[in-house]
């Protein structure tokens, strides 16, 4: 095969020959399966689970291929390969998702194996992006560079990737299983909204050992739950044994009779966290020991793959621009750029949320251009965020003006990260066969209404999240302002919630009033924001104001304004 593979200094785990052989075998197997399906040797009932195991869904308009991007980290050759797949096998674009993955919406079954081959050629695949298995592990988009990070979570994300890939015992769980991991006290990976959430840290008891705080039973969907604490600290050597114990208890007792009640959050809720953890502890005691111990040497080996990139001693200072550029550059610097722990280096977030645009969509030409920028300015590495943006994690501050101008030309420099226009939206009824209502047009209308960057900066941090159905792929439950599309007698209507949040103080939003039509949503959002602007204390964020004033207060103020 034509193997390109990650190059440069990108801090990405590199496939070995075993990995490559395995992924290649899967491509060959899938090619044979697809050929047999097209020839009529396999029925759809026989073929469907096989294509889903390779990330190939049938959606509204065509087959959709969901590509795994392990913990959201890409090298520039990988991004170029995605661009080429978009161009050759899709319609010239892809859609970044809240799982840090990429979806192609127009794949043909007769070409799907070729697309998988193109992925395999750059050490990528679509395995376990569907089905009742452990899905792509997600993490903080600033992992390894964040100034506030205690420990680099990528090492453990990679260990979890290897552990969960084709784990024979966990390939047919009661339902899908999602793990998120962070190494920072400021959670950017929404760990409390996952089946299992991990926070890498040193033993709080002072032993000096590395390990993780384990949260379990979080999730969104029809019945949203914030995760409960499993253990305050599991030492590194026992981490896999403890996770194995959680999954065994889930596999044994999770409900298989009702898909709506099959996630681990329901098991934890129905058993109660105390009884659930008693069963986990029982299993853990059986598993603890040499067979399941995470070998220090294995961890050290994987850690070497994530060695720091070859930074200069200092990346310099942010240039000061003058004239017309000064304000726009300063605004972008404030919203889209964060300092990292490497002196003079910053992480730049590329907004895939232009005013009036489709959140998470990116053209093949943009992907190629960003790969070139990553080669020039970020050691050939790109990150995908769960908020559907991209990150260049290792940029010299001295080069920021060049990067900004280049991104501006590509329409990837909207200064709105974490602000009103940085909306998470699922594909909704425009693409998804599960959706009840459209999401994207609402995101477009809201981002257009709040397009003025000065106004967004004044409003400050505000996370608007939109889902087109109760499955909550757009994370509406944890939006500061959440919007859920519902089908009311054939008409698309939208339920607005307030006060959700996905950080370590995670909370599920509360309904702010009766559902409204699509055309009314931007005006309702505006009224909510006006109430906040009127009543906020100095420096108080939207989500904090909602917590202080109460959703009821907003509800009453909205009613009074009608």
């Amino acid at each position: 095969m034509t193997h390109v593979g990650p190059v440069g200094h990108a801090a990405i785990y590199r496939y070995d020959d075993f990995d490559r052989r395995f992924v290649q075998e899967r491509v060959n197997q899938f090619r044979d399966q697809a050929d047999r399906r097209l020839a009529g040797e396999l029925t759809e009932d026989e073929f469907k689970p096989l294509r889903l195991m390779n990330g190939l869904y049938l959606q509204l308009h065509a087959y959709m291929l969901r590509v795994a991007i392990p913990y959201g980290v890409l090298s520039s050759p990988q991004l170029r390969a995605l661009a080429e797949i978009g161009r050759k096998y899709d319609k010239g674009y892809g859609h970044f998702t809240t799982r840090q993955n990429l979806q192609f919406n127009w794949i043909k079954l007769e070409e799907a194996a070729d697309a998988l081959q193109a992925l395999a050629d750059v050490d990528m695949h679509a395995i376990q992006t569907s089905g009742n298995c452990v899905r792509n592990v997600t993490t903080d988009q600033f992992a390894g560079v964040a100034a506030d990070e205690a420990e680099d979570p990528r090492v453990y994300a990679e260990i979890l990737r290897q552990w969960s890939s084709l784990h024979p015992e966990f390939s047919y769980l009661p339902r899908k299983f999602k793990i998120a991991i962070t190494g920072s006290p400021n959670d950017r990976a929404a760990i409390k909204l996952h089946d299992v959430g991990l926070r890498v840290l040193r033993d709080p008891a002072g032993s000096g050992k590395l390990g993780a705080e384990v949260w379990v039973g979080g999730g969104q969907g029809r019945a949203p739950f914030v995760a409960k604490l499993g253990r305050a600290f599991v030492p590194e050597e026992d981490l896999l044994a403890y996770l194995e114990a959680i999954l065994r208890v889930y596999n044994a007792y999770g409900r298989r009779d009702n898909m709506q009640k099959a996630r681990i959050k329901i098991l934890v809720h129905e058993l109660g966290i105390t009884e659930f953890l008693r069963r986990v502890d029982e299993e853990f005691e059986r598993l603890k020991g040499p067979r399941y111990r995470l070998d220090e040497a294995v961890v050290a080996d994987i850690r070497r793959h994530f060695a720091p990139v070859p930074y200069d001693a200092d990346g310099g200072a942010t240039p000061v621009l003058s004239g017309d550029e000064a304000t726009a550059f300063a605004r972008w610097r404030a919203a889209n750029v964060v300092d990292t722990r490497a002196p003079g280096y910053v992480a730049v977030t590329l907004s895939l949320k232009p005013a009036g645009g489709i959140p998470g969509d990116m053209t093949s030409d943009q992907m190629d251009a960003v790969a070139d920028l990553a080669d020039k300015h970020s050691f050939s590495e790109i990150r995908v965020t769960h908020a559907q943006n991209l990150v260049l994690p290792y940029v010299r501050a001295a080069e920021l003006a060049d990067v900004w101008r280049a991104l501006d030309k590509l329409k990837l420099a909207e200064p709105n990260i974490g602000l009103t226009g940085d909306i998470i939206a699922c594909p909704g009824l425009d693409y998804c066969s599960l959706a009840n209502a459209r999401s994207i047009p609402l995101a477009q209308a809201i981002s257009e209404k709040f397009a003025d960057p000065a106004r967004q900066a004044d409003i400050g941090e505000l996370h608007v999240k939109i889902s087109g159905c109760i499955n909550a792929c757009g994370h509406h439950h944890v939006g500061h302002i959440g919007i859920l599309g519902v089908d009311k007698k054939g008409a698309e209507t939208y339920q607005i919630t307030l006060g959700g949040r996905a950080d370590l103080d995670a909370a599920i939003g509360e309904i702010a009033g009766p559902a409204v039509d699509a055309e009314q949503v931007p005006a309702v959002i505006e009224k909510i924001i006006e109430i906040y602007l009127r009543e906020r204390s100095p420096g108080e964020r939207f989500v904090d104001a909602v917590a202080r004033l109460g959703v009821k207060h907003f509800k009453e103020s909205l009613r009074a304004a009608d």
Partner: protein
Amino acid sequence: MSALSVTANRLADGAVVWLTAAGGWSVSARDAAVYPDADQVKAGLEQAQAAEASQLVVASYAVDMVEEPQGPWPVKIRERIRAAGPTVRLDLGQQAAQAS
């Protein structure tokens, strides 16, 4: 009660297709055969089952339709989006083909 047509996705490329009066499959909903009620659409669904068995289409089902001057068109928004293409990308799907 509205009229009904039969729709599916084409196996080879996933394209949305509509069963025609001639027993073929068209990418345009305007070409769809229209059955007056749930009883009569059964004949169309049987044809679709046969087409599934011969690997032409997958996931066939009946859809509520209205007659318009240009031909039949789905009643529900989901099916209208399937028939036309994403409402946020007018350059894609059947709507693009018809516009060009």
